[in-house]
Each structure stands twice: as C-alpha cells, then as structure tokens.
C-alpha cells in the first residue's frame, strides 16, 4: 500500500466537441494537502476542478476518490458529491433563501438530518466565517465577500472531505478579497484538503503545499509554490509568471 491519498487522477482526458480541454492529466492530492492550480484562462484548470466533483464527466482516464475508482456507471455521483465541497467564482447562493437557509438546505434535504441539529451547526459555521449577524438576511443584501463566505459555509455544512475552489476571489472587488482568503487560510490550517484554482499568487505562496501550473490542457510543472514561482524549470511557466507577477 502506497501513501494515503484523498484523490488521484490518472490519464484524465476531456473534450468539448472538437476542443481537447484536458490531456492526460495525472495528479494526486493527499489528505490535508492544499493545492493551487494556476495557469492562463483556457488552460483547463477549471474543467479539471469540475471533473473532480463530476460536474463535468471525463472522457477517459481514472478518478480515484478515497481509494475507490469512481465511474458514473457504478457509483451514485450524488453520494460522491456530498463529500466534495465546491465554491464557485460567482457564489451561486440561492437567492430565494436567507443566509441561514442557504447553509441549512443541503444537510436538511440531502442528508435529511433533524432541523434542530442542522440549525445549530449552520449557526456555528456562520459564526466561524464571521457572518452571525447576517443569518436572516437574503443574499442580495450581502457584499461579494460576504456572499463567498456564506458559500464556503454552505459547502462546509455537508462536512466534505475535500473542498474545491474555482477562482473564489476573481469576481470580488479588490478590497473584499482579503476576507475570503483569510477564511480559506483558516480552513487550510484546520487540515482541510483543498484544491484551489486561483490567480492569487500571494495566497498560493503562503498557504499552498504545492502548486500546479497548467497550460493548454496539460500539467506543465508541479512544485512547492516558492520553488515554482521563484525558479520555474519550464520556459512556459516562466513566461506565465512574468506576465502575472
């Protein structure tokens, strides 16, 4: 038995029509790892993330989650998704529900837990992301940073084993980025396994255990963020970093 991993991707391929978006992706995420995916837009990093919780279905290759090879024919993907939290660039909070109802929705209606218990845990999560005073407010009344923190609490409410973040700060005004990143940092410090698609190089350097640079559907370079950012081995990585840093 090799070392324990949370999720392992082998030779993953995905196309949209004629567009080959992911090409032979191999990646292994261990428990409590924080991994940052970086790369230009169109490099396939968001698609990779969406394949990890099966919002996109792979064309070929293996996705092994907690020791089990997950296939749509043999597995209930809904059950797998319960254990994989996802945070979106544009939050996607449920606008017809209050903040508290947003966080309670999935434990209540997917896991069918008791309302009292769900409510207590949801309030605890909102306290953790610093939004206790917004429980009964509708999402339209929140700032972008607050929305994203509610979205994080909503995903955590299912007690996932791994959290995926798809450019969680890209839609935020610059002054609101910090509050979301610090919430994510806390989460990382608690040992949550995280895969983060991000353009926040500072966050990647500070929090990530390793970073992955993707280009044109392939993983070009993998390494500790310090090494990757300061001494990229590949010319393409260097060019990308020069353009964003």
């Amino acid at each position, binding site marked *: 038995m090799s070392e324990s991993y949370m999720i392992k991707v082998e030779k993953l391929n995905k196309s949209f029509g004629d567009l080959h978006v992911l090409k032979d992706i191999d990646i292994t995420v261990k428990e409590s790892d924080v991994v940052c995916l970086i790369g230009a837009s169109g490099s396939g990093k968001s698609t990779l993330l969406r394949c990890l919780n099966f919002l996109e279905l792979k064309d070929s290759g293996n996705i092994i989650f907690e020791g089990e090879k997950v296939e749509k024919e043999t597995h209930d993907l809904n*059950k797998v998704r*319960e254990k994989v939290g996802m945070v979106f660039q544009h939050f996607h909070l*449920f606008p*017809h529900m209050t903040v508290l109802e947003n966080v309670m929705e*999935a434990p209540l209606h*997917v*896991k069918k837990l008791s309302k009292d218990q769900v409510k207590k845990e949801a309030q605890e999560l909102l306290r953790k992301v610093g939004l206790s005073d917004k429980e009964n407010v*509708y*999402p339209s009344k929140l700032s972008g940073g607050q929305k994203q923190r509610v979205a994080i609490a909503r995903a955590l409410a299912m007690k996932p084993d791994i959290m995926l973040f798809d450019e969680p700060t890209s839609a935020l005004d610059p002054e609101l980025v910090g509050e979301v990143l610090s919430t994510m940092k806390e989460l990382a410090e608690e040992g949550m396994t995280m895969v983060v698609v991000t353009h926040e190089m500072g966050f990647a350097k500070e929090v990530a255990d390793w970073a992955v640079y993707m280009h044109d559907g392939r993983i070009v370079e993998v390494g500790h963020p310090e090494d990757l950012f300061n001494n990229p081995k590949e010319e393409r990585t260097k060019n990308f970093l020069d353009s964003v840093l």
Partner: protein
Amino acid sequence: MDLLTKFIDTYPVFLKGMLLTFQLTAVAVFIAIFIGLFFAFLKISRIKVLEWIADIYIFLVRGTPLVVQIFIFYFGLTALDISQFWSVVLGLAFHNGAYIAEIFRGSIQSIDKGQMEAGRSLGMTAGLAMRRIILPQAFRRAMPPLGNQFIIALKDSSLASFIGMYELFNVATTYGSNEYDYMSYLLIVAVYYLVLVLIFSVLVNMVEKRMASSD
C-alpha cells in the same frame, strides 16, 4: 340614468354570471398550471420524442381558434356524459395550458445554470435541485406573465356563452335581445369585466410583492 336603473335592476343576475365566469376561469387556470408545468418539463427534457409531443400540443392550441376548441371539447366530452361546466373548463384548461407551458419553460430556462450546479455540488439529485432551487425561483419569475394569462383566460371565458353557459357575456346578450337594447347591457357587462380584472390585478400585485421580499 336609464343605464343606472338597468344596472340596479339586473345586478343579481349579473352577479350570478360573474360568479360563473370566475369559477370557469379559476378552475380552468388551476388545471392549466399543472398541464403547463407538465409540458414545460417535456420541452426542457432534452428527449426528442417528448419535446415533439410538447411541440405538437402547443402547435394545435396556437393554430386553432379557441372557440373551435371549446366546441370540440363540448361536443366531445358531453357525449361522454361530462357536464357542460367541466367540458368548458377542460377546453379552457387545454387552451391555456399551452401558453402557460411556454411561460414556465421560459422562466425555468432563465434561471442561471449555476443554481443547478450549486445544488448538484451539494449532493442534490437533479430532481431535488429542480424542486428546491430552480422551481421556486422560476415561479416567482413567471408570476407577471401568469397573471397576464389569467386575465386573458378570464376574458376568453366569455366564449362559453356560445355553448349556452350562463356566464357574464351570455347574461348581457340575453338581456340585450329580450329588451331590444344591446348597447346598454354590453356597457354594463364591460363594467363587470373591468371590476373582475381590477380585483385580480390587485391580487397578483400583492402576491408579487410578497414573493419579492428577498430581492
């Protein structure tokens, strides 16, 4: 003054007609909402055969006059011992269902795709996400056109007079022919319709305001 006297003399009969008009419309639209929802789901099912079935239904309704549909339902259903009231209700429901299907299809498809994805990412089945996340938002968005459709149905129910239902319009034309004074009773019945539509518009506005509390 003459008109006012006529109005006062006839109001008990007109109120009965108004009640029947309201019943016809309310029951028909209630049923039409379920028909509409059903065919809206067929339209968005992405299963070709089901989409075709919905397309054919909508084509038939839009392509033929309502009065023809009402007569077909009337002669067809009363032959099966279904009452006059129910044959008109079902005819109106069949007709309005097609328009309501298009209203629902549009409002469901107008909800951001991210809403479904957010639901699915939390472990919801597509059905649960549709019921808990998409439909509540789609219903709210459908309220203004639904209210509009209800008003159209209310006025269209006057066609039930053609098969002898004693609703508002029939009351008016009956008085008109008995007293050789169509114009007075047509003006009177117009007032009754206006009042019904006004009451209904206010109700729809109230519902919309309540639903909008989260915006």
